[in-house]
């Protein structure tokens, strides 16, 4: 309402107007600074890092380390809070991430190719092609082991065997099981599968006792057992054998290099769909800086675990190519693994 006195209107109304503008401006600034989706620099609050498995195991190991070291490489003074959300074979945690707000404050670990095959065989609540990939922290290489006194001392022995070669493995939808099926099919080994081992250690027990002939699992799990001479490493699914087993034949040596990509476990980091690109970039850079940092490298050396950094594009490409590779074996999975 205008003051009737023109001489007085301009100054008092201008002051009121300026106050109002100033109030709106301050309010907008405060909102931007305090809200996740506001205009302040991201991140403005702690980031949840969801580990979809329990406190034991390598997923938790790496997740806790990322929670510890990543804050040092993020802008602003925020924490990364590692949280175990286990259950339903990892689905609870995966859904927790996938269904969270795409604001960059919830990310988590994704187990590939485990989730790829699951999504081929069953209906899942998430679509891997829509996950906002941040990067990768580990690529686990697989190996094939037998007992030191086994009748099978090479892949050729297995291929030429008159009887079925008994492979012990994890649950039917576990990554290790899927890798085993792909590998034995590709190498044309007449295999019989023993499902249900709760861990690599249980499987190793069965191999050593003679209840099974072989097992395919990650080199990280295998290493100590081979170095203690309790198991023999017969094949590494990679182009090169590790230093601690340099004489071991590789899949490349035997002409099966195409298996190298399939026979890996990828620990990827991702967020919900439609995460803004700028926030993905910040998270990606923080992840890569963390993996490259002295503290993370020291931690990995102390714990004797590998770090295999990858950026968001590599993660996305890995998922895409694994979907193609494992898609070719869909019928085999349905028949050999999920039909009984």
């Amino acid at each position, binding site marked *: 309402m205008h003051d009737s006195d023109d001489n007085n209107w301009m100054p008092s109304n201008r002051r009121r107007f300026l106050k109002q503008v100033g109030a709106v401006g301050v309010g907008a600034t405060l909102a931007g600074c305090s809200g996740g989706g506001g205009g302040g620099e991201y991140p403005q609050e702690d980031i949840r890092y969801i580990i979809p498995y*329990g*406190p*034991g*195991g*390598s997923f*938790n*190991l790496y997740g*806790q380390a990322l*929670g*510890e070291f990543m804050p040092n490489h993020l802008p602003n003074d925020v924490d990364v809070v*590692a949280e*175990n959300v*286990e*259950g*339903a*074979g990892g*689905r*609870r945690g995966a*859904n927790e991430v996938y269904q969270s707000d795409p604001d960059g404050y919830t990310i988590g670990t994704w187990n590939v190719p485990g989730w790829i095959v699951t999504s081929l065989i069953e209906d899942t609540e998430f679509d891997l092609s829509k996950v906002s990939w941040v990067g990768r922290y580990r690529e686990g290489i697989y190996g094939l082991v037998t007992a030191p006194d086994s009748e099978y001392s090479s892949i050729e022995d297995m291929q030429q065997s008159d009887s*079925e070669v*008994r492979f012990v493995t*994890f*649950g*039917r*939808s*576990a990554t290790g099981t899927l890798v085993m099926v792909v590998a034995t099919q590709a190498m044309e080994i007449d295999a*019989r*599968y*023993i*499902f*249900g*081992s*709760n*861990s*690599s*250690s*249980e499987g*190793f*027990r*069965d191999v*050593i*006792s003679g*209840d*099974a002939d072989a097992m395919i699992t990650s080199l990280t799990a295998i290493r*100590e*057992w081979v170095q*203690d001479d*309790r198991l023999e490493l017969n094949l590494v699914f990679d182009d090169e054998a590790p230093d601690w087993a340099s004489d071991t034949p590789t899949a490349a040596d035997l002409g099966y290099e195409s298996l190298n990509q399939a026979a890996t476990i990828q620990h990827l980091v991702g967020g919900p769909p439609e995460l803004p690109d700028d926030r993905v970039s910040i998270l990606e850079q923080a992840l890569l800086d963390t993996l490259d940092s002295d503290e993370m490298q020291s931690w990995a050396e*102390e*714990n*004797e675990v590998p770090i295999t950094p990858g950026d968001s594009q590599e993660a996305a490409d890995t998922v895409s190519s694994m979907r193609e590779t494992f898609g070719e074996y869909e019928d085999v999975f349905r028949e050999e*693994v*999920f039909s*009984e």
Partner: protein
Amino acid sequence: MSSTLELLASALVILFSWPNIGFAIAGVIIGLVFGAIPGLGSVISLSLLIPLSFGMEPTAAMILFGTAMGGGKFGGSITAILMNTPGTAGNVVSTFEGYPLSKKGRSEEAIGISATASALGALFGLVILLLLIPVAETIILAFGAPENFWIALIGIVAVGILGEGDIAKSLMIGGVALMLSFIGYSGVAGVYRYGVGTQYLWDGIQLIPVIIGLFAITESIRLTREASTIDQSDTDDHSTVWDGVVQVFKHPIVFFRSATIGTLVGLIPGLGGLIASFISYFQAVQSSSNPDAFGSGVVEGFIATEAANDSMDGGALLPTVTFGIPGSPVMAVLLGGFLFHGLSPGLALLTDDLDVLLMLVLALALSNVVSSTIGLLLGGKLANITRVPVDSIIPLILAVSVFGVFALRNSILDVFVAVLFGLVGYVLVAFDYSRITLVLGLILGPLIESAFHQSLQASGGSYLIFFTRPVSVGIIIAMAVIIGVAYNKMGQQDISMDQDPMDTEEA
């Protein structure tokens, strides 16, 4: 051996130095509190402590973990004795004789028995662990899927013979429990069964909410209807904790047999404290001259459960540290703690890192002794809870139970399950059906199924695998003996009842 003793001595010095002794005290307190709250226990306490231990020296971390584990078992016994509410799954059987002792006004004595039998049982198990390490690999390799199948079957047989109420009812409930245990995703079968499309039932019906429901909530309902206080004795002359201490030393055979059973059961991965204490209790009943008295506060039965429940840890550590195969759910989490601190189960832990392993063993031993001592000193005060009007106790039991269940997975559905089984438990008790049978069926069902399928897959479908292995044959013989002895005893009891001189027309 001499180098092991030297390492032990060195570990002792380190354990009692600062800040390690501080970690030990903190671990005992955490363990006692978590053990006493139904639904929490050592699994939860360790799960929380592992990430908090980031950056600690492995030795210090093992002290923290070991003391928390040791405190948890005894903490769970306290609530089992005083409120018929087991703090952990392994304390379920503690309620069979511990709570009746409380109702008779002998709660302090029960605490004394538990404190003594638990501490001595734990020490027994740890000594056996150290002695068995040189032959650990041979033992672990002897038990494969067929052996695990027969072991689990012994558990089912024992349940059928010993379950509360009559055998037909026990077997019926056991069958229902086995069916309930099949709900959820089966890794060995590769199918999701009876989950009605929900994510909640993917992991099956969770054990802890069921136990809380069947025991804590059912008991709360019963208390509203049946008593003014838990202590229903007429006398003010109550026995003391020291009477309980003496009782354990008066029954050395029961103690050593039970501690041995607990340690042996601990060697078999997947069984855990509940199975250990149940089998030990079963043995105590079978070898008693007055089995019918069990369930009314029989000291031998209570010693059997407490000794076995705690000696189990020593046995369970063996497959855990030598093979990385967790001997119990708590050991599975502890294994995560090993990995978290760069320790690998296997020969390295038994050679290069033996000092760390010995520190864990000492921490477990220390925590059992300390927590039991706390129990003995505070037993009198704690026992007063049995003389408080139940109107004040019931809300406490319910609130703590609901909190414990919810804290497991932050799931309100777990709370609903607990309430549901609380109502189910009340009906079971009213119609003389066995609650423990229901719980044991839920535990043993997945073990039996998994072991059965794995055995057949290994043999290519031949059932001979169950009958041609030496250890399996030994277990089958043991089972036949158990059944034979049990039925013989029941037959003798029937005969003596038929020949009762009082039961005559002239009388």
